[in-house]
């Protein structure tokens, strides 16, 4: 096995077990280690370090020991399937933030405006319904009273539906913005698999 293969194996083993940043840091350390030792000592270095599997096992064992002794903080649960927790992997963080802000500028006023309109209309309709019933009861004639009562009830229920729809819209906007942020900036999505 040559140095490149060794380091490639090492990286492959580490990225499955550690946060990406730590894995890269370790590979960097051993890349430098090989370089300093020089090409003629490659075999000797590999013999000292052990196979990539053995070296990985040593590193993980030491980390586990340190965690157990309390000298180091346990790792965060790692994200699987999607890219590294820091950043989404396909966009620089600031681009992600800009995109979220831009979409927010479009989504929040439109849907938010609709929600406010719906909510206001609902409240007005609700109030009108109540007024209609009150006036209808005072008015003359059984037919007129029943008509006012029925109409008023319909208006109250439609009004409350509108208010609920407005609440739903606010919730949707919030949810949409949170998801956009998670996908474009954090890169986390909801598919998390804790490996510990």
């Amino acid at each position: 096995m040559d140095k490149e293969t060794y380091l490639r194996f090492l990286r492959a083993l580490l990225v499955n077990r550690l946060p990406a940043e730590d894995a890269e840091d370790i590979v960097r350390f051993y890349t430098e280690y090989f370089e300093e030792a020089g090409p003629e000592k490659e075999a000797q270095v590999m013999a000292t370090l052990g196979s990539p599997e053995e070296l990985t096992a040593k590193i993980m064992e030491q980390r586990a020991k340190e965690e157990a002794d309390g000298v180091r903080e346990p790792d965060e649960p790692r994200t699987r399937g999607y890219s590294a927790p820091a950043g989404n992997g396909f966009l620089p963080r600031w681009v992600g933030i800009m995109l979220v802000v831009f979409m927010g500028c479009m989504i929040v006023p439109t849907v938010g405006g609709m929600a406010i309109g719906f909510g206001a209309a609902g409240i007005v309709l609700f109030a009108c319904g109540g007024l209609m019933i009150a006036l209808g009861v005072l008015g003359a004639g059984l037919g007129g009273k029943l008509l006012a009562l029925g109409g008023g009830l319909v208006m109250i229920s439609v009004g409350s539906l509108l208010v609920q729809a407005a609440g739903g819209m606010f919730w949707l906007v919030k949810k949409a913005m949170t998801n956009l942020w998670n996908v474009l900036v954090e890169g986390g999505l909801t598919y998390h698999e804790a490996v510990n």
Partner: protein
Amino acid sequence: MAFQVTAPLLDGCVLAVLEQGDAYGYNLTQQLRREIDLSESTLYPVLRRLQRDGHLTVYDEQFQGRNRRYYAITPSGKQQLTEFRSEWESYRGKIDHILWGGMQDG
């Protein structure tokens, strides 16, 4: 070797070597290897942790066209080393006491 060099011991040794002067990973490992058997551990986690705790800092320097990452002890690292030395002294005294039969007197 009959005795295992555990994490805190290795911390102290690394800091002591760095007190003599900055060193890069390979060089540091070789210096320690001259005296102690490191086969059961790797220096990487030790260096990383000491760095995280602020006991050492790293800097990169070009050497013959490639990068060398140097490790340097910080004031907090020096303080840690002093503490470590006095702890080691008292620990060694206790073990010596047991090993050379000082216990019988007491």
